[in-house]
């Protein structure tokens, strides 16, 4: 018995000592990074994303090596899926770093929550794609190095075999044309579901991917005049018509109710004829399919094709004790060669034309320049309101319900009721 207790106590001592040594290893590494001691911490969502993280680190290294730097910048990377939770927890403890990256549509919410300070940069932002700027209440709170664009990918040979017209940026498919194309493709008997809409996606993918269809049909997530209600926009006639069409794609067997996890791999493997995806998938698809790949504009459901605008951007937190240095760092990163470096590492659309000219694929006539055109022509920002995260969640749930066969009108009415109640309970999210 005595031995057993001694063993237990010894184990406790060893374990405590191990913990102590770990504490010793880790202590001093945290630091608030709020700029008080000449060191700024920068948080990014890129942990595990080697290419983008390496590009960010290289910009930071370049800035830190500058003789006229205003602070030393330190990178702290978080995994994307849990990044927002980490930021919210840190904000509640007033432990935010000086510089954060933010998913574009969340900027108004973070500005309203006073996480962010308005930007005062020496860099000229007038040449940026509008979708790379995060604005709220007339002020710019964030700026991005890149954007992404939604598109339809297909094989030229498949469309030709089905006798389907290949749409262009000036003449996209109408709703009827898309329906007819899907009917013809399904008729070939090659695919169970010719269209892959990425319906297995979750989270922000749902509003990012599907609200542009709603907008193209004449509806919207919320009434943008004051952002006080979704009534009439998310559940009006146009929205209900969109929802019925959207569910019809599944009902007619044109699209799967829940697609695979890796839709690009499925498309390359020939499991779908048309893939609705983002510009990030193009290089992989082109490498596999070569010249047979065609990049098509999204469908026009009545109000012209629409695609979501706004990707990850950078902002300075309101608690930063060295905001001037943080702004100086951000201005440095917005030089065309630095924007190009990040865009190239991520395979995304550079935020400015000057940067695009430095990347052959995005330079005029380049293989991916069409995505920049899509972004310029069709991008619609997700509603610039602090209510957006709630609206996005409700719309995501409604979309999944509609795909599963729920009644479109009552599903959208419920979403509207919940969104309006949320806006009301937050005092209209007024600044």
């Amino acid at each position, binding site marked *: *018995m*005595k031995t*057993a*207790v001694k063993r*237990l106590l010894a*184990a*406790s001592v*060893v*374990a*405590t000592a*191990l*913990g102590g*040594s*770990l*504490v*010793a*290893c*880790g*202590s*001093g*590494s*945290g630091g608030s990074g709020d700029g008080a001691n000449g060191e700024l911490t920068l*948080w990014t969502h890129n*942990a*595990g*994303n*080697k290419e983008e993280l390496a590009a960010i680190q290289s910009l930071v290294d370049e800035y830190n090596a500058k003789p006229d730097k205003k602070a030393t910048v330190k990178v*702290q*990377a*978080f*995994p*994307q*899926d*849990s990044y927002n*939770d*980490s930021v919210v*927890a*840190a904000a*509640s*403890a*007033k*432990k935010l770093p000086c510089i954060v990256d933010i998913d574009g549509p969340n900027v108004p919410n973070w500005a309203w929550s006073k996480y962010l300070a308005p930007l005062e940069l020496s860099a000229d932002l007038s040449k940026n794609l509008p979708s790379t700027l995060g604005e709220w209440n007339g002020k710019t709170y964030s700026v991005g190095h890149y954007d992404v664009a939604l598109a339809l990918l297909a094989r030229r040979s498949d469309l030709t075999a089905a006798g389907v017209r290949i749409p262009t940026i000036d003449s996209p498919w109408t709703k009827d044309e898309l329906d007819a194309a899907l009917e013809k493709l399904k008729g070939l008997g090659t695919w169970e579901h010719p269209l892959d809409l990425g319906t297995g996606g979750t989270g922000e993918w749902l509003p990012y991917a599907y609200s542009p269809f709603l907008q193209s049909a004449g509806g919207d997530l919320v009434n943008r005049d004051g952002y006080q209600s979704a009534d009439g926009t998310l559940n009006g006639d146009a929205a209900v018509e969109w929802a019925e069409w959207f569910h019809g794609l599944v009902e007619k067997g044109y699209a799967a109710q829940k697609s695979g*996890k*890796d839709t*690009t*791999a499925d498309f390359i493997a020939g499991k779908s004829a048309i893939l609705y995806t983002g510009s*990030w998938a193009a290089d*992989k698809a082109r490498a596999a399919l070569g010249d047979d790949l065609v990049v098509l504009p999204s469908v026009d459901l009545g109000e012209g094709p629409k695609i979501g605008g706004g990707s990850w951007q950078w902002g300075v937190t309101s608690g930063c004790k060295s905001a001037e240095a943080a702004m100086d760092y951000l201005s440095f990163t917005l030089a065309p060669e630095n924007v190009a470096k990040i865009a190239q590492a991520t395979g995304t659309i550079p935020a400015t034309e000057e940067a695009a000219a430095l990347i052959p694929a995005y330079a005029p006539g380049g293989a991916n320049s069409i995505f920049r055109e899509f972004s310029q022509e069709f991008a619609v920002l997700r509603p610039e309101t602090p209510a957006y995260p709630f609206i996005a969640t409700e719309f995501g749930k409604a979309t999944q319900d509609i795909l599963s066969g729920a009644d479109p009108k009552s599903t959208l009415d419920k979403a509207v009721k919940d969104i309006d109640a949320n806006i009301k309970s937050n005092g209209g999210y007024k600044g």
Partner: protein
Amino acid sequence: MTVLKPQGVLRPGTGPVAWLARIALAAVFAFPLLFMVVSSLKPDQQIFGDLGSPAAFLPVGHLSLDNYAAVFDRVPAARFLLNSVGVSAVTVALGVVVNSMAAFALSRMRVRGKGIILTLVIATLIVPFETLALPLVWWVNQLPWLTANGFSLELTTGWLDTYQVQVLPFVANAFSIYLFHQYFDSIPKELDEAARMDGAGWFTIYRRVVMPLSGPAVATVAILTFLPAWNSYLWPLMVVQSEELRPVMLGVQYFFQLNVSWGEVMAYTSLITLPVVALFIAFQRAFVNSIAASGVKG
């Protein structure tokens, strides 16, 4: 003489049907693990190619340790493992000591209103951790700590982004106190009285009499404390910012990029499951007993 069979007691069968049923049940639980380990050795294309056939569970085709090499390239896996081992071990060690002492006081000492105290302690089990998480973040951010600064100690405020914030909030555990209390109640109080006759005080009785007789309770509490500490995700996500302090579960998220490499996911999950499986094999009997004793799944 007639041998009476106990009524209403379930006895495990020993016939071939019973064994087949056991093997089938074991396979249901073992196959996901087998799939994970086998897939960790295959390239992504082969993982998906083998799906839908028995090859998914067999080490066939092009096998390599490439996914494991890629894991260490993407994630500081060794550091995360070390962190989790340290945090879990300290939580278990302190949990056993602190909770057994609390239970000892409630079980053996004359404390006024101890029934109410025990009820209140147990009542805290009703509140889900998710409800407490955010207030707890605020709270731990207000707490003082002594930090080494060269050769002197400095009083700082806030435990965020430290190891102690991953350990200390989980040391005191209502369920562990309850388990120890129930077990201590089953140990005859006459042993305390005999020890008292020999001049022992409360701490000696706790250390020399009660704890040595409580091996099964210690094992149960250790196991039931270890598993949530090892699997901890939400709390470190909220309170740990520096990469060098993160535990293994946060590492899983590193793999979910636009193009997920499932081979790497399987390799990483194999790596972080290995210590738990090893622990299970080493303490299999105690683990099964702990589930039987506590009536809960770990």
